[in-house]
């Protein structure tokens, strides 16, 4: 994979069904274009985002992962977004030890009405990861929960 300006990062976005996914649909409704690099995976609640999903995304070739949740106090399931936020903070420390920059794992809040915010988060994330270049480490997930890392070929 080549570095430089032609590099198009692959990003996986986990969006909660009620706020962020609806926010992404709202952005669609306004028909403003944004970079196509984010592959959206819909979950019912950001609280469903198991840190393993994020590690899995890196190991499957993602250069960045984005988790979008309802704003504090607005979670459809009361407090799943707090859990997601806490897990994200913890995971950043693990990623740090694995040598993965925190810009590659972003957590933010997008409400159903915030189409424009969704677009700017996507744009900034893509720019930030493009600037970092490809993630050239691979996380090896084994099924007993230990994660190790190898250089990507």
């Amino acid at each position: 994979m080549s570095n430089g300006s032609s590099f198009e990062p692959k990003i996986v976005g986990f969006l909660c069904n009620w706020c962020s996914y609806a926010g992404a649909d709202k952005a669609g409704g306004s028909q403003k274009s944004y970079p196509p690099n984010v592959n959206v995976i819909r979950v019912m609640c950001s609280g469903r985002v198991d840190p393993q999903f994020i590690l899995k995304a890196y190991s499957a070739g993602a250069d960045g992962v984005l988790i979008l949740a309802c704003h504090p106090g607005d979670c459809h399931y009361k407090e799943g977004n707090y859990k997601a936020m806490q897990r994200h903070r913890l995971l950043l420390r693990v990623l740090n030890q694995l040598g993965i920059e925190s810009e590659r794992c972003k957590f933010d809040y997008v409400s159903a009405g915030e189409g424009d915010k969704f677009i700017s988060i996507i744009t900034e994330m893509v720019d930030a990861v493009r600037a970092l270049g490809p993630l050239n480490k691979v996380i090896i997930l084994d099924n007993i929960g230990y994660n190790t890392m190898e250089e990507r070929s």
Partner: protein
Amino acid sequence: MKIGVYFCNCGSNISDKVDSVQVYQALEGLTDVAYFKINDLMCSEDGKQFLNDDIAAEKPDRIVIAACSPREHENTFMRVLTGAGMNPYLMQMVNIREQVAWVTDGVDKASAKAAQFIKGAIKRVGFHKPLEKKSIEMSPDVLIIGAGPAGLKAAITIAETGRKVTLVEKSPVIGGQPVLYEEVFPNLECAPCMLEPLLNEILHGEHAENIEILTLSEVVELTGFYGNFIAKIKKTPRYADLNQCIGCGECIGVCPVDIKNEFNNGLDVRHAISLSFAGALPNVPFIDMTACLRAKGEDCKLCERSCPLGEGIILYDDAEETVERRMGAVIVAVGASLYDAGLIPKLGAGTVPDVYTSFEFERLLSSTGPTGGQLVTSSGKTPESIALIHCVGSLDSNHKEYCSGVCCQSAFKYNLMVEHKLNDAHIYHLYKELVYPGKEEFFLYKRAKENINSAFTRYLNIGSLEITAAEDGRILIKNTLSEKGAIKADMVVLCPALAPSKDTDKLNEVLGTTADTYGFFEELHGRLDCAKSKVRGIYIAGACQSPMNIAQAMTQGMAAAGYVLSGLAEGKQLEIEPITASVDAQRCSGCRVCMLLCPYKAISLDAETRKSSVNEVLCQGCGTCAAACPSGALSSNHFTNEAIFAEIEGVLA
């Protein structure tokens, strides 16, 4: 596995930007993809018919529909699948309109992005399992806690439809706070007369047999879930037969014991056997056993002997009992109380004579109150001036930050009532803010302003008011921030904020409901669902949810009744969404991580097996538990780890 892919052009919404040929080529070589079909408008009647017929003909194992947002038409297509004899959960929708066609520059890029999304769906859908909606029986009956305006209105509304209502009231009387008032704002209607028809309907009306009233009772335990709650209710004995007593009151006068009368806020005394106040309903006395001589070992039977109906009406052997009732829903309507004015000690509540709270003043104004409605000071004088202090503990970050909205109305009402009782008394309003929202509320303020004996003075901070007993026997009200002279009055009425009643925390614990930042019962949503608690099947109505007036409480009682009537229709089964969590008992280590996380208390640990299980009625399918289980025992139906892992691999492939 045979997977069919359907690509919708959405008129030209999608096909203008996403080239189906490019997408098809990108999918080439994917195993399991049996066919790729294009339709112009799949959500149209023709489109749905095409999908239906095609599924029937092709008999795929799974299908992927690349079209608009699932938020738009997932349910539409699920119904088509069901109609075509295919389990509706064996489908995955791909949002190539809102999240691809409409937002991507250039056909090549849009087509590539759409192909990635579709690959994710193809990978994922293989892991979908057929899921079935389950349904269980529900009880249409209801438990209502609190027999004030909100609870009573809900009770009669629900009882009229033939359902059974258990109405639990802590005090010996029904009617709530307003039955203690002589007149209510905004038009000084006689409160007991206003409520009488409603109370009568509840006690003796056509549907009264559907309402079981348990006075002197408390809910001590609630188990189960929406549709199937079981409540334990503790009944304190009344010691008088509710059904046979005719309420003549002969027994009351003969009782030799005098105690403070809490129904008049301790402003006078009552006997150990008593009615709460004249006209209280149910019109049957009760014995306060903490005061009765019999509790002290004496064999007093004066009340029983005085009963014109003879023995058997007064029941000295009446004992506390706990009864169990089953119901589908619960309405909490326990009302509010006043903010404790004693927390602002310089106002003299309870220490300076003739300083009253608004609830106490209501009783002084009432013809069934301690003075028979006569306004006299504690030294027996007719007051020449009365000071009304608004905003006591309101709009103040040291106390309650909100405005209760009703205290100003009460104060304006007092102005008019005092004017009627004492022609030329001076009335002072000391306030922080004056409010009179609503179509009828301005009237009382206007009347107060028009009284030449009324004066309005603003204060900035309740902490700067000092209320003391003056040497001449009057009351001195000083504003320490103001250089102007102090006011003297013969009576002071403090109008405190409405605050959560003191049982709120205990009741929240029993019901599993929550309190908001102010301590009121917390609603599901402040605008959309303010009569729903955060627990499914438990509704909240009246001032226990937020400060409000009688009209609003009645309306919210109706709102809660509406939820019950539409949700718990007779004979209807409770449909349980299959997207819930489930536990693989083999793998569960009993660590309880999931139990502590679940916001709906849907998970419980079996005491014997030490394994978790998920209650499918309570579970809302958020998946938070599945993300946390360290043993991988918890899985989230339709959003299983396998499915999401596969989708991740698919979109990145």
